[in-house]
């Protein structure tokens, strides 16, 4: 397929996608997985034949007929938070009575 075709799928782009999604695939696994995804996408290119000029994208099936200006918002009232231990204890390396969530050092990553 020509390079300018937006529907041609490059393995390098799929590997980039895996990186973006924080999936660290070993060489052979990467090739196999990306190969499968490429094959699936090739199959889906038939979708491109459907003409969509002037059609608005439909991202969510919220009922447009319902009046959604007021009822979807919450009043600004404080509600009880979870006791700290209730959620901190779910962390993989949690220790009893901790104040903070402990994670591997993050320097170099910050945005």
């Amino acid at each position: 397929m020509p390079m300018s075709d937006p529907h041609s799928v490059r393995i390098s782009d799929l590997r980039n996608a895996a990186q973006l999604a924080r999936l660290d695939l070993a060489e052979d696994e990467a090739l196999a997985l990306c190969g499968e995804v490429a094959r699936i996408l090739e199959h889906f290119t038939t979708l491109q034949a459907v003409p969509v000029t002037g059609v608005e994208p439909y991202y969510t099936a919220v009922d447009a007929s319902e009046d959604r200006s007021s009822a979807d918002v919450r009043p600004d009232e404080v509600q009880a938070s979870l006791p700290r231990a209730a959620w901190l204890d779910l962390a993989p390396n949690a220790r009893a009575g901790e104040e903070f969530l402990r994670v591997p050092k993050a320097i170099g990553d910050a945005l």
Partner: protein
Amino acid sequence: MNLVRQVDTTAWLSPQTGQLWELVIGLEVHCQLATQSKLFCGCAVEFGAAPNTRVCAVCSAQPGSLPVLNGEALRLAVRAGVALGCSIATHTHFDRKHYFYCDLPKGYQISQAARPFCTGGGVRLRSGKLVRLQRIHLEEDAGKAIHDRGAETLVDLNRAGVPLIESVTEADLAAPEEAVEYLAALKETLQHAGVSACDMEKGELRCDVNVSVRKPGAAYGTKVEIKNLNSFRFVAAAIEYELQRQVAALESGDPAQRIVQETRLWDTEQGVTRSMRTKEGAADYRYMPEPDLPELQLPASFVERERSMLGEPPAERRARWQHRWHLSAKDAEALTHTRELADWFEAAVRAGAPPKECASFLLNEVLTAQPDSLSLLLPRQVASLVTMVAAGEVSHASARSVLRVTLAEGTEPEVVVQQHGLRMVLDTRQIEDWCRQALVGREAIIADVKAGKAAAVNALLGPALKLAAGKANAAVVRETLLRLIAES
């Protein structure tokens, strides 16, 4: 590198090359909205709360949790847009901005991408220059990551989900002091609108700066983003630093020093910006409409309601006070420091206080007495006290004492004046009496005054006031003395 600031134009001259350079600055300001609870859940927004105690299933991104929009956050955001002269969209929706970080529990931030709820508008500087706003959008804040405590990074999610508006200017600013003026005006507008307290110390106002340099008339240079600026002073300093750094790099011609589009951190201690050494170019945030939050309608009535909550812009208030009440510019500025103070002042004037005297009394006595004076007093109490002073019923010194008592005990000023017998005597006959007594045995002074040395009477003021036990107005006493001497 020591660039010379030009006088007639906003440009800098490089002594080395004789080249003029201009600054091109854009500001991205994050401002925390003054809500009780977070943007998408009911956890309290509370600076200084114990770590990780204002967290729930939603803001810790527990599997299965869903966001629900805080109506007050939306109202305040629209109010901010109206206050800054923006166009408010009729419909608005949220988008997901994806990246991985330990302070971003969902792995995406709920923000607004292509269609923010607000566009246009701006802030006019004193020079008349309009700093245009590109957009304002609503988004949630991330938590806090602490890197300098041990081998691990510590995370506190109390701040995760706090409502923010992000306002982005066009690249209209051209000098460090313009940036500072813009920020001060923005802060004042938002604070007076009740949108945010904008307390930078609490992180309620954060500023990122985009800076580039160019030769006059040339195309824009590569811009650099600077983060971690938590005071207006540092904003100006960082811009200054970047100006010098970028011009030096460009003039050196050294390819190794070429300006790279990157994010730099302001180092407060060293007074320099440092590269963060991250990948060049923009991150791929893969924006996608937020499926868990329906599109919202913002009808004109909604927008108009927020407009009606705004009140008079502080600059207009100051102008009116100076024009109508002859307040000094300095006093007007000080009294519009917060909306609360400005409203308080006007309430006192409405309660009968003479404006100029009230302004002075508020600034010099009330606010300096103790930090929370305004919350312990009523405007009409101050009005009553100021009115008494202006009418000469109470001396200035006494008023200070009355204030202290009212603050401490809550007693009404008139009552305090009564109880302590602080009321000045206005009775002319009584004053004459005291003066006559003071004149006894003072023939020498009387003679001096009659001979034309009016100032000699000042020596009698002290004794006369002492007889009056301080309850006579000094100016009135002096006048009375002079009159009696003249009549004698």
